[in-house]
C-alpha cells in the first residue's frame, strides 16, 4: 500500500523506520546505556520512584506591568495551588536600561515586570510567604548576577537567610547570542560574569539555589532541531563549566545545582527520546570530561516549558490540545519542572483565564491520566530506544564540530550557530509552505472566520509611572553611597574579580539597573550581533 509520505524522517532528517524490532537496539552495551531509573546514566529518570514519590513542580509564566500587578498575580496563583513562580522581566530590565532611558521607550512593562532597582523587587514579593513557595524562577541572563544580588540584598534587609530561599535563575548568557538576543556585553566577559554566580553560590553555601539553567529552549524556538537544541546547549555548558573549574570550583560542588531548560515540543516520540537522551549525554559528559563522581551531579534535572513557537495564532483554542500532548511527552520523558503555555501565548502575555487552563492541563496529566504510576513507562520500546540512540549520535557529532571550531564563544562570534538555526528554520518553513508539514488551522483545516480571544493589555500608563518612580528614587536615595558602590563594582570588573559582593552593595544602595549595567558596559563594552541569516 502507498504511504502518505515518500520519506518518513525525524526532525533531524534521520530516517524513521516503519517498524522497529529488537535488532534496532541490540548494539553491544546498549543495556548499560539504558540502565535503571535513579542510576547512571539516568536515561530512565533521575529517581527510582519518580512521580510516585512526588509530582513534578508545576510552574507558570507570570509577570507583566508593574511590580504591584505581578505581586497580585502571585497571590492569586499561590491560592490556586501553584508551587513554582516565574518572574518575566521586561526588555529594558533584561538589557540593563532604566525605564527612562531612550532605548526603553515603548518597552517598559511590556513582556514582563520592570525591575529598575531593589525597590521594585521589594514590591514584587510583598506579603508572599516563602515557606509555601517551592521555586522562584526568573529569565534574568545578562542581568542574572544582578538579580541574584538583588535577592540577597532584599533577604539581608528583611533578616532572612538567603540560603532558605530557593532561587532559580537562568543566567545562561551564551544562548542569548544564539537565540533570544538579550545580551549586553561581549561573550567573553559575559561568561565570566555568569560564572560569578556559580562561584558565589558554591562558596557561600547557597545549596538551594540554581545559579544557572542552561537553556536549549530558546535555541529550539529559534528553529533548532532536537539535536541542535541539546548540542548547542551542552556546548555552552562546557564553556561555563570550564571557567568555573578554572577558578578552582569543583564540578561536584556546583553542577548538581545547574538545571537544563528544554523545550517541550509536540513531536511526541522524538521529544520523549530527547529528554532521555539529554540525561544520558549529560551524565557521560560530566563523568568523562569533568571527572564528576557525585550522583547528584551526574543526574540531570530538567525544566521543561512547552514550546511557544509551536502554538498558533489561528484557531487559538487548538493550542490547549497541543499543550496537553507536549505536557504528556515531558512527563513520559521524566522532567522535574513543567511550565505550560497558555493558549493565547502566540499573541501576548497570558490572560489569567488562559494561564489557569494551562495549569489545569498539568493537573489533569498528573492526577487523571495514570501515567505517573509507572516510571519511564515507554522505556524499552524499540522505537523509543532507537530514537534515543540516534539522537545521541547526532548530538555528539555536533559537539565535536563545535569543539573543532573553537568552542561555543567562537561559534557565536563567527555566526555559526545563528546560521545553522536560520537554515533549519527556513527549511521548516519551506515544508509548511509546501504543505508537506501540516499545521492544523494554519496550512490545513483553516477556519473561514477566526474567533476573537480576549487579549491581555498592559496598563498604558505603566511606563509613565515606572519612569516617574525611578526618577523619584534617584532624588531620594543617598547618591554618594550609590557612587561609591558603583566605583567598587567598576574596580572589581576591571580587576577580573568576582562581581557578586559589589553587586550586592550596589543593589543595597538602590543603584538602578541602568547605573549598574552602564558601569559594566563602560568596562566590558557592548556587543553587536553579526546580523547573519
Amino acid at each position, binding site marked *: 500500500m502507498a504511504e502518505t509520505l515518500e520519506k518518513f524522517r525525524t526532525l533531524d532528517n534521520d530516517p524513521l523506520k516503519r517498524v522497529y524490532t529488537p535488532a534496532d537496539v541490540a548494539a553491544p552495551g546498549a543495556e548499560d546505556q539504558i540502565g535503571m531509573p535513579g542510576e547512571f546514566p539516568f536515561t530512565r529518570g533521575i529517581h527510582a520512584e519518580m512521580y510516585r514519590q512526588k509530582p513534578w513542580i508545576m510552574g507558570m509564566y507570570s509577570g507583566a506591568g508593574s511590580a504591584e500587578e505581578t505581586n497580585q498575580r502571585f497571590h492569586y496563583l499561590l491560592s490556586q495551588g501553584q508551587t513554582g513562580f516565574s518572574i518575566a522581566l521586561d526588555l529594558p530590565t533584561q538589557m540593563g536600561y532604566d525605564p527612562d532611558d531612550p532605548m526603553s521607550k515603548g*518597552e517598559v512593562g511590556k513582556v514582563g515586570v520592570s525591575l529598575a532597582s531593589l525597590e521594585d523587587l521589594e514590591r514584587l514579593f510583598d506579603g508572599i510567604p516563602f515557606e509555601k513557595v517551592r521555586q522562584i524562577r526568573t529569565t534574568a541572563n545578562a542581568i542574572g548576577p544582578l538579580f541574584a544580588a538583588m535577592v540577597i540584598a532584599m533577604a539581608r534587609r528583611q533578616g532572612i537567610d538567603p540560603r532558605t530561599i530557593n532561587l532559580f535563575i537562568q543566567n545562561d548568557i551564551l544562548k542569548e547570542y544564539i537565540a*533570544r*538576543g538579550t545580551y549586553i556585553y561581549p561573550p567573553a566577559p559575559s561568561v565570566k560574569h555568569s560564572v560569578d554566580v556559580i562561584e558565589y553560590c558554591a562558596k557561600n553555601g547557597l545549596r538551594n539555589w540554581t545559579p544557572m539553567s542552561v537553556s536549549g529552549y530558546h535555541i529550539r524556538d*529559534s528553529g533548532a532541531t532536537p539535536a541542535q537544541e541539546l548540542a548547542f546547549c551542552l556546548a555552552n555548558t562546557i564553556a561555563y563549566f570550564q571557567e568555573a573549574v578554572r577558578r578552582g570550583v569543583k564540578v561536584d560542588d556546583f553542577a548538581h545545582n545547574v538545571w537544563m531548560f528544554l523545550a517541550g515540543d509536540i513531536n511526541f516520540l522524538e521529544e520523549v527520546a530527547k529528554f532521555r537522551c539529554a540525561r544520558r549525554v549529560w551524565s557521560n559528559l560530566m563523568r568523562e570530561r569533568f571527572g564528576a563522581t557525585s550522583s547528584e551531579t551526574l543526574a540531570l534535572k530538567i525544566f521543561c516549558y512547552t514550546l511557544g513557537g509551536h502554538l498558533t495564532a489561528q484557531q487559538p483554542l487548538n493550542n490547549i490540545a497541543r499543550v496537553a500532548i507536549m505536557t504528556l511527552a515531558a512527563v513520559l520523558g521524566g522532567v522535574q519542572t513543567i511550565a505550560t503555555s497558555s493558549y493565547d501565548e502566540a499573541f501576548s502575555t497570558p490572560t489569567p483565564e488562559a494561564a489557569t487552563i494551562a495549569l489545569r492541563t498539568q493537573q489533569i496529566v498528573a492526577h487523571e491520566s495514570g501515567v505517573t504510576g509507572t516510571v519511564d513507562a515507554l522505556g524499552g520500546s524499540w522505537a523509543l530506544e532507537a530514537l534515543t540512540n540516534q539522537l545521541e549520535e547526532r548530538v555528539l557529532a555536533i559537539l565535536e564540530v563545535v569543539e573543532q571550531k573553537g568552542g561555543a564563544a567562537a561559534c557565536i562570534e563567527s555566526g555559526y550557530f*545563528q546560521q545553522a538555526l536560520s*537554515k533549519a528554520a*527556513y527549511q521548516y518553513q519551506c515544508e509548511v509552505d509546501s504543505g508537506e508539514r501540516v499545521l492544523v488551522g*494554519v496550512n490545513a483545516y483553516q477556519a473561514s472566520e477566526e474567533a*476573537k480571544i480576549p487579549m491581555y493589555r498592559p496598563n498604558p500608563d505603566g511606563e509613565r509611572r515606572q519612569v516617574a518612580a525611578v526618577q523619584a528614587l534617584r532624588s531620594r536615595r543617598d547618591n554618594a553611597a550609590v557612587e561609591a558602590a558603583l566605583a567598587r563594582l567598576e574596580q572589581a570588573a576591571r580587576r577580573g574579580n568576582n562581581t557578586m559582593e559589589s553587586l550586592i552593595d550596589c543593589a543595597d544602595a538602590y543603584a538602578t539597573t541602568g547605573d549598574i549595567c552602564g558601569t559594566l558596559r563602560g568596562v566590558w563594552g557592548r556587543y553587536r550581533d553579526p546580523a547573519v541569516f
Partner: protein
Amino acid sequence: MEKRIRVLLAKPGLDGHDRGVRVVARALRDAGAEVIYTGLHQTPQQVVDAALQEDADIVGLSILSGAHNTLVPEILELMKAEGMNDVPVLLGGTIPDDDRPGLQAMGVAAVLGPGTSMREVVKLVRELAARRQVEP
C-alpha cells in the same frame, strides 16, 4: 537587466526574537532580492539611516515585544522627514488585530502576522516594488 529589489529588514527596539525576520530574509534572497538585515536592537533613527544609506526600495520591520505603537510611528515620522514617503514599510511580528487599522492609517503598507507564508511575503514585496517604479 532588471534592477534587483533592495529590501532593508530591521529589528527596532529591544526585542530579540529574530527567527521570523531571518526566515523572511532567506526567502527574499532566494527569490532574487538584495536583502540587508540590520541585526537586533536598532533605534528608529538607526533604521532610517540604514534605509537611506542602503537605498532601500522596501523597509520591513519585525517587532514581537508589543512596542510597535511607539516604534513604528517614530520610524514613519523620521522617514517622512527624510523625504522617504514613497518607500513602503511592511510590519511583521505579533501585532494585535485591533492595532492594525491605526498602523495602516499612519502609512504602514501591510501588517504580516504569524502564519503568513513566505510566498505571500515575496509576492507582496514584488508588487510594492513594481508599483513604486511606475509611480515616480
